[in-house]
């Protein structure tokens, strides 16, 4: 019998580790997207993925249902997630503005061409 790693997850009820798993997949996808896309908007999307992967972690660890902790309201993780969403929105606005300016100057949004800040 071959033991696939993480196979036990399929047989268990949904818990924190499932959420963390999904978050990790999202995070990895985001990082890969950021590392491979040459399009600035693609990079932006990757960032969003990374942030949302992190958000999932916050919510999973914060939820009192998943933690079986009745004394906690479970709002602290959600609160952090709200912050991250707001932060992501602001950051997206800034990045879009940079991208727009970059396009105005270079007629392109290829991040590989944005190497003028090299040391």
């Amino acid at each position: 019998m071959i033991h696939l790693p993480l196979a036990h997850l399929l047989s268990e009820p949904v818990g924190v580790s499932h959420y963390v798993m999904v978050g990790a997949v999202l995070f990895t996808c985001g990082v890969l997207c950021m590392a491979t896309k040459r399009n600035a908007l693609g990079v932006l999307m990757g960032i969003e993925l990374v942030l949302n992967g992190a958000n999932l972690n916050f919510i999973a660890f914060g939820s009192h249902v998943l933690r079986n902790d009745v004394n906690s309201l479970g709002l602290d993780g959600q609160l952090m997630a709200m912050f991250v969403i707001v932060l992501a929105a602001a950051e997206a606005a800034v990045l879009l503005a940079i991208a727009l300016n970059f396009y105005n100057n270079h007629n392109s949004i290829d991040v590989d061409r944005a190497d003028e800040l090299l040391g």
Partner: protein
Amino acid sequence: MDIATASKLSTLLMWAWLLPLASFVVILFLGKSMGRHSKFGGYVATGVILCSAALSFYALFGVWLPNNPLADASHSSEEVHAEHSEVTSVHPVAFLADHGEGESKGHEGAADHGEGGHGEDGHHANNKPPQSYYGDWYTLGQFGSLKLTIGYYIDALTVMMFCMVTLIATCVHFYALGYMHDELHDFTDSEVTLSDGTNLKRPGRYYRFFQYLSLFCFSMLGVVIAGNVAMVFVFWELVGICSYFLIGFYIERHSASTAANKAFIVNRVGDFGMLIGMMALWSSLGTFAFGDLTDTEGHVVEQGIFSQLRSAENDYHLQATDSVVAEQNRVIRPSADGATIEDPEHNTAGQWLLFIAGVGIFCGCIGKSAQFPLHVWLPDAMEGPTPVSALVHSATMVAAGVYLTGRFYPAFTPEALLVIAYIGCATLLIAATIAITATDIKRVLAYSTISQLGYMMLALGLGGWVAGMFHLITHAFFKGLLFMCSGSVIHGVHTNDMTEMGGLRKKMPITAYTMLVGCLAIIGAGIPIIGPGFSGYYSKDAIIEQAWSYGNSNPHLAILKWAPIVGAFITAFYMFRLWYMTFAGKPRNQHRYDHAHESPRVMTVPLIVLSIFAIGIGWKLPITNLNTTALLEQARPVGTLATTQGVLLPELVIPNEHDSHAPAIKWAAGWAAFSTAASGVLLASIIYLWNLLDPKELKQTFRPLHSWLWNKWWFDELYGLIFVAPTMMISKTASWFDRRVIDSILHGSVTVCKGCSKVVYAVFDKTLVDGMANGIAGVTWDLGLWLRKIQTGNLRQYIMFIVIGTVVLFIAISFVQQTI
């Protein structure tokens, strides 16, 4: 001592003394802010000195005379001298004792005084201390037995000096109000040429002149009122510095500033002697005080100098106290053989120390009163404005020296008095001869002042205390008058040179005739023997009589007898030479004559006031028996009314002053004085009025003599050779040493220091310090260059770095966790 009188007198005189100080302070702080063109300073100073004069005269007539009435018979009135021995028995103190008003420590009263004139052996009754009031206002400090106080010693002499000083100072102040008007606006000094060829222009200094005048009066009154030698010394120096300020008033003129320096430095020479005298006194007697300090009941608490040296037990004869003898053996003769001499006739123990103390104090007087050999500063002091000359030469500076000699009189040994007499004699003759050839009108007067001061010192040295002090007072009036007249002439013709004057009598009659009064007073004009005469007649005759009497007692000292008579001849000659050259004859310089004018009233009124005093100060006041000599007799120093014999020089005899009024002496001396003065005037008239002899031919005939006198006996050159040249040589050598030796040592050490630092710079600084700093910088630079390569600017690469870094971090953490 009458306490009420004492406090009244001391308060009055204290205010008269302090008011000029207040004026000085007021002008010092407000003078400039009142404006340079206002007469504020002049009015303040004049008003204040007027108040001082009023207070002084009130002190004399309102307080002193009612409490200390004069003796009925006084010594200057001529009719009484046939019976002089009876006269001396009623001198003022005895009179006071008779009336129960004398000082409380008086013993027998009038009984002692019967034989005041018969001095055969020097051991007869002597006069008591004069009525005096002594006390302290303020104690500056006490250091062991040395007590320094601000105090007063008031006797008839103090009160008279206050009146004389303030009166003359008032006249001088009024006169200066007019004389100094040039200083009210911007002043162009025609005697100072700047480097660009123009004359110096400076703002006027009217207020400052009066500021100094006030300080001058304050200092002089301080000398007069001082109750101890230390306080005298303080004000003595203040007088010196004031004269420095005033002589150097035109400080931009080279001659004025050097004259001021000369006056100050020459005075320091004398003051050095004075300090020695003070030290000798203090170390032996332990006090500086003139008078005895008494408590409220009149018991003596602390004895002063005079009562220690002339104690009542010793019949007021000068005798060295035990402390003086001990100090002398310690200081002067370590072998201590002086104390073993038992012979009472020749007990010289302590006399040498007293001699040194006396001569030391007199040294200060030599400097201040411009006596030979320190007389050289006074003629140069003519550089000051004329009112200053008038004040310096009459009432203040030079009077201070004579005053101190008079005040200190009881402590002078007969030998010290002989020194004083010789100095006075030399001064009198030298200065008089120099005055013959001088042509600067103020210089003639300056030398005449020196000569007259010589008269005073001579009189004091010969035992003629009243004669000397009387001459001081009369001289103050007529010399003040003469100087102010000369100032008026200078003001009118704008030159000091008598060879450019002549015939000014018609242009400035008031000045001319008041000056004639001054000349007659100084030569002692009067009807011989019976009087009356000008003030100088009384005082100069008194001096000549005393000299005559002295010469009779000391045949071996005949020069002291003849000097004043010869001096009288020369005085008469040069004074009338001055008057004739200035006011008589034809104008020598028509231009100056045409522009000459009489001075304004503010200057001539003081002249008239002073000329009245110059005529009448020696007279007896009608109705009352008040006259100056009677007042001075009240202040006669203790123990001076006896024939005294020298101790170190046994053949020296100082005759009783009252003996000099004996008819035989009076007759001879009076005629001698009159005939010499008359022949002096006659000679001056022959040469300068009637032109029977041509002064130019005379000058040619006596060329060596003339150049000798014209160059003032070569004194300045002599001092230049003896003192100034060696000093200059020493300082030049020192300067050479400084520049060559000390400077080269300095330069050498600097070079060595520079070399060392160069080596240190090259070896240590360049390699170690710089190398360390540069090495660190180089390494940092290289590291930066290498790290720079990672920064490609590629976004995706950076993300890879982040990822890889994170993964590496995780792996590292997992390893670390495993090891724990």
